[in-house]
């Protein structure tokens, strides 16, 4: 199926919904080499590149397009690898048209922004077939840093810290690196070989990743601090928000996050060989965010496209906090939606397994002068829905384990409290990413990981007083002239 020109001059191709809902093969289809070159040629090479401004990691979109238009994919790759070690991941996971690069592209005024995500994806995939040398690494500083958590924030931070010349070890509590990108993003959206390859490249520059080690349990944080010059905590989001309604403890009522982790964390193929869940034919998902869509579409695929899957959303369709492209894809695959509804209770059979959900209809009203709307149940309008499995995905807060264990100061929802320089309340310990803010995008977590890495580096090298933000440096360095001349002297890390 071809979606007519969502971006760019070429169709945005997707796999056929009837076929793709029965398996986990990638939905989004790539551009060809010719399409990439033609599309990159459309780039205006703006003197004020809003696309770069809109990218949390300041990916050199303009430079990428300039080189790709000439067919110089090597230079294109080098330019974007400079600030983004997870190129293939972000090309697939970023909602480019929602507040990021494609949304900002000036050509959106004429309705056809540059297909930046598809160009980036091509370059990342090209590099997997035409291996390029790793980015430059500064001279060894003799400093040791441990990073806790191998999600996008931890990986981006570790990559940059290593490039600064520090010895970097990352500790990961699960058996696979990648964090949410590994266990929380389904394979049809992000094929895991892409992530594995990019993690391997981080290891290739000398980052040591140690899995199955939980800091605070297997190794005390205090011991780690003694053995290192600095610590960076990037343990992400983990603490799920629970739904407290009668029947929540029935069998078959499952946390959507736990569901995704069970399916993907050990590798999809392993799960399919020995599935844990018998989902049945009538699957309900309670949520309204991206994870609820992931749960719905994963459940549909696990039942070979045969089950009835319905997502129950509290908000109206126009106000949903989801990537609209993902919503459209779910709709194409036959996932149903009920909007302005709220679970009242769940009913089960004699074996204690869920069989039905009682649902309230709600309306959004503004009860006070603040204008903030809240859901109010409409009396006598409840209805019953049959369900064999109920997946709950109503939000996650920061992973609170380590900060509680170690006594690090926290803020809202047990997020680690940090100052502007990413320092926590404990000397020598920094934190970044979802563990400080709650759940966010992959690329936003990377942004904070990189910024924190810069601060850790300045702390280690006594450069704190001369801090210059990445944005300031990028803006004032005027890489535009350098790009036009075609002279690349990327001889060191961003500093």
């Amino acid at each position, binding site marked *: 199926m071809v979606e007519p020109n969502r971006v760019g001059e070429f169709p945005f191709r997707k796999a056929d919904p009837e076929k793709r809902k029965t398996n986990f093969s990638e939905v989004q289809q790539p551009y060809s080499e010719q399409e990439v070159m033609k599309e990159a040629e459309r780039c205006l090479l703006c003197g004020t590149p809003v696309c770069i401004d809109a990218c949390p990691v300041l990916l050199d979109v303009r430079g990428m397009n300039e080189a790709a238009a000439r067919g110089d994919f090597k230079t294109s790759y080098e330019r974007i690898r400079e600030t983004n070690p997870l190129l293939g991941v972000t090309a697939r996971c970023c909602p480019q048209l*929602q507040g990021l690069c494609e949304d900002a592209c000036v050509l959106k005024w004429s309705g056809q922004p540059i297909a930046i995500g598809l160009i980036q994806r091509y370059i990342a995939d090209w590099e997997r077939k035409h291996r390029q040398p790793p980015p430059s690494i500064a001279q060894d500083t003799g400093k040791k840093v441990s990073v806790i958590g191998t999600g996008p924030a931890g990986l981006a931070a570790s990559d940059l810290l290593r490039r600064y010349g520090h010895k970097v070890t990352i500790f990961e509590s699960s058996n696979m690196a990648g964090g949410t990108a590994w266990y929380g993003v389904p394979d049809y959206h992000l094929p895991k070989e892409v992530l594995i390859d990019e993690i391997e490249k981080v290891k290739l520059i000398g980052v040591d990743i140690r899995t199955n080690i939980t800091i605070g349990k297997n190794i005390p944080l205090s011991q780690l601090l003694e053995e290192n010059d600095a610590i960076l905590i990037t343990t992400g989001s983990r603490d799920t928000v629970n739904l407290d309604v009668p029947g929540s403890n029935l069998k078959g009522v499952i946390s959507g996050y736990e569901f995704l982790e069970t399916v993907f964390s050990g590798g999809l193929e392993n799960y399919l060989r020995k599935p844990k869940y018998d989902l049945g034919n009538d699957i309900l998902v309670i949520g309204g965010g991206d994870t609820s869509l992931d749960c719905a579409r994963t459940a549909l695929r696990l039942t070979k496209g045969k089950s009835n899957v319905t997502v129950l959303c509290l908000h109206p369709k126009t106000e949903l906090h989801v990537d609209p492209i993902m919503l459209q894809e779910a709709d194409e695959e036959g996932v149903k939606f009920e909007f302005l509804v709220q679970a009242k209770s769940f009913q089960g059979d004699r074996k204690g397994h869920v069989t039905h959900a009682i649902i309230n209809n709600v309306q959004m009203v503004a009860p006070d002068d603040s204008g903030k709307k809240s859901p109010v149940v409409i009396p006598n309008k409840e209805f019953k829905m049959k369900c064999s499995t109920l997946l709950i995905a109503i939000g996650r807060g920061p992973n609170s384990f380590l900060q509680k264990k170690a006594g690090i100061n926290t803020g809202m929802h047990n997020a680690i409290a940090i100052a502007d320089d990413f320092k926590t309340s404990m000397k020598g310990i920094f934190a970044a990413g979802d563990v400080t*803010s709650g759940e966010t995008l992959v690329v936003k977590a990377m942004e904070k990981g990189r910024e924190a890495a810069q601060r850790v580096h300045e702390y280690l090298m006594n450069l704190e007083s001369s801090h210059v933000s990445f944005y300031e440096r990028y803006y004032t360095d005027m890489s535009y002239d350098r790009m036009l001349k075609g002279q690349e002297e990327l001889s060191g890390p961003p500093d």
Partner: protein
Amino acid sequence: MSYEFVIKKRPKDSEAIIFSGKQEIAKIKKHEGFSFKLIRYKDKQEWVLSNIVDGQRRPFSYAVRKAINNSSRHETGEIHLGEEVFVVREQLFKHKGKFYMLASHPEGKSWIDYVNSSTRYISRLDNFPYPNLSDIDHGHYTLRHKIKRFRGTSVGEASGLGQHEGGHRVRLDKELADIGLFIATISYLLYASG
């Protein structure tokens, strides 16, 4: 009643003319460093726009400072900057106690319309939970992502690229009329200068 401005990139790449109706009312010129100058024709009032806001250079941000007329300026070419009269910080601004967002998506409009549309809205955020723009960083590190999900009431629209024949058009409701010139200038500089 609404107010419309059209900004066209000319004569040089670093300059633009601002129209109200068919009348030229102001000009944007490149200034020192990375700043711009806005010159209003009717009274020759000048302002300097810089993307250094709250102490640091920020994307999607501009601070507008009044240029003070200085009798010695002709000799030295120097401009003294007065008070900050308007600020957009990462697409948000505050005016008469209310918050607004540039390039927003109003309540009630489907997000897929936003994705497919070439119009950007300026919305009044009636439920904005922060008292000041500078407070946003502290509790909301996911600014660019979550802020974009604040919906509001449309009070203006922007469309078009400055270098195209029709120029960059900014239409505003009456409540933003007194800062319309600043909004139009910043909308052009942020999104449509190419």
